[in-house]
């Protein structure tokens, strides 16, 4: 376990973008919010929002949640782009600069090394993103509170621990689902990174694209495309709404119907196969060619 924590630390040293990107995202969001609230950069934004937020009928809870989701959605996009670029490179860079010969001279097994890369993308990067969401949200709510300090109802809701707790719980639940649902895609990119002789980024995209094209030409269907694209969102997309803003279900965190979806488990099984293949490739391939 100690070796594993060193392997994770190693990833953090190498991939400074893993924390710089969320930090920059938070900074940009806070700056945009500050500019919008206090400088009127977006001419229509302050008046309309002011009107919305100060209306008697508005449900402050909705505002709080919408704010959270807006922030979290931006972070999720940045996270997914970051995960892709991290995974594409993680087993390729060490072969390209031949430093794999150094790493393989130390007693850290191929299994532990490959798993550390997956865990970094699957757990560490989202954890950093979640911290970024929290920080950005705190600062933006602080700005909103200063701007609308006279609207007591809004302020009370923004800073209500119950709303915060539920909103964060909701966000984390969604994040977890997104991660598990997209795990086969991530494992695929990891495998390509372990295998690809060059340009893993291109190969990771070309193979599913070609498969989709061949399917379209031969069978006229587009299952491959649907499966791949579908994995980039939420599992509920096909079975029911989950993230439409007007129907946010507070109880979604106690809804475990997703766990019963065979597609989820099938996806995890496929992911395990990809990861196993990546480990075997790193173990067996002559590292110096």
């Amino acid at each position, binding site marked *: 376990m*100690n*070796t594993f*924590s*060193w*392997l994770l*630390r*190693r990833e953090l*040293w*190498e991939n400074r973008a893993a924390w710089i990107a969320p930090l920059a995202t938070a900074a940009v969001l806070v700056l945009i919010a500050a500019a919008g609230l206090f400088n009127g950069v977006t001419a229509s934004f302050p008046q309309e929002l002011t009107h919305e937020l100060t209306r008697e009928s508005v449900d402050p809870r909705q505002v709080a949640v919408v704010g959270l989701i807006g922030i979290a959605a931006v972070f999720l996009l940045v996270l997914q782009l970051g995960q892709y670029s991290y995974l594409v490179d993680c087993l390729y*860079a*060490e072969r390209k*600069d*031949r*430093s794999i*010969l*150094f790493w*393989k*001279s*130390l*007693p*850290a*097994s191929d299994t532990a090394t490959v798993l550390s890369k997956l865990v970094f993308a699957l757990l560490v990067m989202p954890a950093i993103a979640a911290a970024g969401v929290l920080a950005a949200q705190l600062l933006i709510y602080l700005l909103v509170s200063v701007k609308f300090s006279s609207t007591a109802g809004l302020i009370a809701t923004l800073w209500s621990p119950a709303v915060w707790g539920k909103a964060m719980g909701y966000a984390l639940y969604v994040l977890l689902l997104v991660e598990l649902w997209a795990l086969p895609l991530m494992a695929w990119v990891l495998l390509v990174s372990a295998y690809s002789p060059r340009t893993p980024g291109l190969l990771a995209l070309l193979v599913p694209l070609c498969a989709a094209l061949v399917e379209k030409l031969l069978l006229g269907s587009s299952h491959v495309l649907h499966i791949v694209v579908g994995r980039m969102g939420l599992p509920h997309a096909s079975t029911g709404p989950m993230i439409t803003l007007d129907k946010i279900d507070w109880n979604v965190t106690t809804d475990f119907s997703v766990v019963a979806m065979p597609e989820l488990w099938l996806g995890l099984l496929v992911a395990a196969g990809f990861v196993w293949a990546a480990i075997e490739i790193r*173990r*067996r391939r*002559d*590292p*110096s060619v």
Partner: protein
Amino acid sequence: MSALVHATGLKKSYGAKVVLDDVSMTIAPGRIVGLIGPNGAGKTTLLKALLGLIGVEGHLSVLGLDPIRDRDQLLRDVAFIADVALLPRWLRVGDAIDFTAGVHPRFRRERCEEFLRKSGIDLSARIRTLSKGMVTKVHLALVMAIDARLLVLDEPTLGLDILARRSFYDSLVADYLQGDRSILITTHQVEEIEHFLTDLIFIDRGRIILDASMESVGQRFHELVTTPDHSGAALALKPVSRREVLGRPVYLYDGTDPAELTKLGEVRTPSVADLFVAKVSGGLS
């Protein structure tokens, strides 16, 4: 004690090219073995096989383990440099030390840091800011600080100046004398290591052409420096090679009685480099 390395009938080919052809060798504990061969002879392939980096046909055991199957366990007792200066450019020297100390139970941090202090390398520097020679020194410092039972070094001093090479070999020998480790080393600068080798292995075109202790090399091989008028007699004793040094013929003999040779001129022990040239170029035929 049983052999640290025991190999029989190792074979490896890439496509039609045979890189290792029926290689057998043994390394006993407490030896310093020089593995010498021309470029492309199979040295690096053989080392990589011993380290479990590539699979080969034949029987191979290192420290009693299968290098591929038991690789994780093997790496606790085997330290190696497969090629120098391969540290990733983004790594800080201090982080490299922390990491190695974190994952290696036999890494001695103080030794590594002392070696680096002597070399004047800043621990907060990133590898990308160091010269190639300095990166090599960092790599050597990391690997040499591991208390390994077997140390495998493939061209460890490539790119180092003569002072750094000398000081590296001095500390290598000092370490060796203190502990109970065996060393397998390859280099093209044979003259720098021959005085401390205990065993010699020549490899050429995938085959082992000499495997002997330095002692027996001294007993078996002799070099005769003579004059041209003794050529007939010298050739009659069947030398393995002939060359000329400053107009005087020099003959190399394998197993010939030195008493016979002394009659023809000056007899001495050949250098490893001369022996190597004689063996690899195929000698007189």
